[in-house]
């Protein structure tokens, strides 16, 4: 029987060989495919086995963090300030990510190649992998103020504050917002319910109005028109310009009128047939003056100036993609007149509004707006630091000073459209421009309130852009929001200086 036994023994050997070869195939060759197979909960759960890095503001307030939990998933993402920072942090659901969570995902998750050496050391020393901390340019005080002020209006809108010298974004708020904690849940049913609720809500809470919705800029666009005019070298703030009560537009029966159909009267033009200085027309926001000026400058010059301020650029990232603010090519003189006062097809994001003011505040040099200040590895070494860079030269320093003087008058002069905010400023000097943009079919919609401005006038620290949809007069709805942000940030700067 030994002969048969030897053969059976050999057969057993072959059986084990088959198992070994097959195991090599499954765990060697097929491993990657299987690990990512449909419904492999392991790969899915893996991203919750490690502590994801935090997102903190420049003043070190955590706005997204991971806490340890027990169960299949070891960590749970949470957002301490909820809706306030939601448009920036975005959310980190098991399926999708948005905002900074998406833009800096690999660093936060710790899978970025820049963390590879660190991970290798952790592997050897048997420490769990940890994600890097992303520090934003955000100022928590300014952001709180921005969100609370927007929320107080009860209307949809967005507000952005920029440090004009660097381009670092100090605040970026959108209302209505959402609670990212509801989307960070690891309970599939709860996640689905929250997701459906937000997606189906007519208020569109997931829309980041600060960078992804555009509004007509209204009279705030006069900053651009003025810049184009002064840059031509033919005009300065004191140039007197024709200021009719009604501006007849060529090739059409339409007439351009001033707000409330009032004449543009500085005392020398009671009948609406004479001229007024441009600085006066800017301060009281005469449409007829800037409509005429725009027609005279031409659509191409306006578009050139608008591009310099960052409009018509769909590639801007902060690092989230920013919707392009539009100033389309205009050839008809009548449409040019409308577009010169921020109507027709002009659209801007609240970020663009802040960029208008920031460029003027920084002597005409527009810094590239950015959110991520630096990335800090788990061992506290700095991985990435954003070095401020110029986005464009909008106007010469001289022109910027002229526009700045006009914007200061808007607030400082008793007849300025934003003079009403002075009482609340507590001594801070603000330069700005209001906008009250008509919209809707035949302009039947409620006017959008727009404001762009910076402070303090002498040494600008903060540039702000605010749009409140349906807010009415820019001075009534948007400027007070800007005031809240400016006051909060300036008091933060003063208190941190005194420390």
């Amino acid at each position, binding site marked *: *029987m*030994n*002969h*048969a*036994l*030897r053969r*059976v*023994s050999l057969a*057993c*050997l072959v*059986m*084990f060989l*088959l*198992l*070994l070869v*097959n*195991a*090599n195939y*499954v*765990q*060697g060759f*097929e*491993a*990657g*495919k*299987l*690990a990512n*197979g*449909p*419904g*492999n*909960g*392991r*790969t899915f*759960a893996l991203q919750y*086995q490690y502590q994801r890095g935090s997102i903190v503001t420049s003043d070190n307030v955590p706005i997204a963090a991971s806490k340890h939990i*027990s*169960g*299949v998933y*070891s960590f749970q993402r949470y957002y301490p300030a909820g809706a306030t920072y939601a448009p920036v942090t975005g959310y980190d659901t098991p399926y999708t990510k948005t905002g900074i969570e998406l833009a800096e995902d690999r660093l936060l998750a710790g899978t970025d190649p820049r963390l590879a050496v660190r991970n290798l050391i952790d592997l050897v020393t048997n420490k769990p992998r940890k994600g890097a901390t992303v520090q934003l340019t955000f100022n928590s005080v300014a952001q709180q103020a921005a969100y609370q002020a927007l929320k107080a209006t009860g209307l949809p809108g967005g507000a952005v504050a920029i440090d004009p010298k660097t381009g670092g974004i100090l605040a970026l708020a959108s209302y209505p917002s959402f609670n990212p904690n509801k989307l960070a849940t690891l309970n599939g049913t709860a996640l689905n319910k929250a997701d459906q609720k937000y997606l189906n809500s007519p208020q569109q809470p997931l829309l980041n109005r600060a960078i992804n919705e555009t509004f007509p800029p209204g009279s705030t666009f006069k900053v651009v028109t003025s810049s184009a005019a002064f840059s031509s070298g033919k005009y300065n703030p004191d140039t007197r310009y024709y200021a009719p009560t009604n501006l007849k537009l060529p090739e059409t029966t339409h007439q351009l009128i001033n707000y409330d159909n009032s004449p543009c009267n500085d005392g020398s033009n009671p009948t609406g047939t004479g001229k007024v200085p441009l600085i006066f027309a800017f301060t009281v926001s005469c449409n007829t003056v800037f409509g005429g000026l725009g027609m005279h400058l031409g659509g191409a010059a306006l578009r050139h100036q608008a591009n310099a301020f960052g409009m018509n650029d769909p590639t801007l990232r902060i690092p989230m993609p920013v919707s392009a603010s539009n100033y389309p090519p205009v050839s008809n003189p009548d449409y040019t007149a409308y577009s010169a006062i921020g109507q027709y097809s002009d659209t801007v994001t609240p970020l663009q509004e802040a960029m208008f003011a920031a460029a003027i505040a920084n002597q005409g040099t527009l810094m590239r707006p950015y959110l991520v200040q630096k990335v800090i590895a788990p061992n506290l070494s700095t991985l990435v630091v954003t070095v401020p860079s110029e986005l464009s030269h909008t106007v010469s320093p001289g022109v910027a000073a002229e526009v700045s003087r006009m914007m200061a008058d808007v607030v400082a002069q008793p007849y300025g459209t934003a003079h009403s905010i002075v009482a609340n400023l507590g001594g801070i000097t603000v330069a700005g421009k209001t906008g009250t943009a008509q919209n809707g079919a035949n302009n039947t919609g409620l006017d959008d309130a727009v404001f762009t401005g910076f402070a303090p006038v002498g040494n600008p620290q903060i540039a702000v852009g605010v749009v409140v949809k349906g807010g009415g007069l820019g001075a009534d709805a948007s400027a007070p929001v800007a005031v809240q942000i400016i006051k909060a940030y300036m008091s933060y700067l003063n208190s941190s200086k005194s420390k």
Partner: protein
Amino acid sequence: MSAVGTTGNGSGSTGAMPALGGAALLPRGRRGAELLMLAFAIGVVLFAYASVGLGLNGHVPTGLVTYGVLFAALMLGAHLAIRKLAPWADPLMLPLAALLNGLGLVMIYRLQESGRNGNPGSAISTMSASTTTFQLIWSAIGVIAFVAVLVVVREPRMLQRYTYTFGVIGLVLLALPALLPSSISEVPGTGAKIQVALGGFSIQPEEFAKLALAVFFAGYLVAKRDVLALAGRHVLGIALPRARDMGPVLIAWGASLLVLIFESDIGTSALFFGLFLIMLYIATQRTSWLLIGASLFVGGAYAASKLFAHVGVRFSIWLHPTLYTNVFCGNSSVHVPCVPSYQLAQGLYGLGFGGLLGTGLGHGQPYFTPLVQSDFIVTAFGEELGLTGLMALLLIYGLIVQRGMRAAIAVRDPFSKLLAGGLAFVIALQVFVIVGGVTQLIPLTGITTPFLSQGGSSLVASWMLIAVLMRISDTARRPAPQPIQDEGMTQVVRGI
């Protein structure tokens, strides 16, 4: 040790005995080597146990000393029993079995702790917080059964006397679950009627039937092998057996089909029929029996896959285990009929996730695979110890099988030869069927993984199987009886 052969403790440490009658080196018991390897096996197990705790929560498990001492004491007890009862037995088998048993306990502990006591993962609902304790108790019963077999069976040939008794016992054990009501015999959720469960306590009689039937086959085939080996007609150069000798094969085939149909247990059915065929082949050395048997089995299995839906489904699952439709039944398009492959897919995902080196004990997520602690325990090893660990496990099994075959070849008595060959083969077949099943080499049929799977019957039966193999190797390696006196034609031989 005296110069004449005695049954003394046979310790290898005393070195070779003086050469007698010009013989070269006499076989040694090598119990010292066994002890050394056993200590190594226990060391590996304790290290793995500590590693589970460190992997799960960064702490060495509090039960390390208690469990470690209990496990080491058990295995040392088995070692001492071998020194006393089977001093010439193969020194490799106990360390290998101890290593498998110990690693099984470690993995069951790891799975039990998942999601419990603040550990990561989700708790496995089919395990309780005392599963490991029960498994340790079963290990103790297994070792006791191991010693009992060595005590009772002093000479393997004595089993031959009870050939038909074992045959009846085997058949009764095999048929028992089929005859009992489903409430007692069905494994919940599987539809397989393979257990006897009374008052929360269950045994799987087939595990013991396997041993009893192996003894019966060996006894029966040794008696009938001359007849069965007779050649009948030649077809295509193969000598077919005579038609009248086909009876036993047909009966075995019929019995295995009955098991398949009434107990819905493909794995056991294949195991028994395979065992019988191989023993028939070893006894008769006729390849024709293998061909006839194999074609009968393939034909039967094919017919069954067409006739019985639950058998057919196994084939579909095997072909498309990771098809989305199959992984998530009920949640898919209506165009593709769903075959529920969730368990197999999760097992494969675990293997893929483990890759070459594995996640490390306690770092994987084997709890995603349903019933991972029994049929799929190999995938848990593959996930946490990687391809490396899985190959090591397969090599341990391979070594046990080859040591068993070695004993079969070395032993003189045909009955013992056949029994050892059959038992060694049945381990190989069982490992092939279950490991091949969970790694998608062959269609999955649920049977236990010897020594590793959670469950008492398989563990106790495996220990008993190792005891029989060690008894046979003890007989094979025992030195021939030495004459007491050297002179004269008539010698007094001291019996052993």
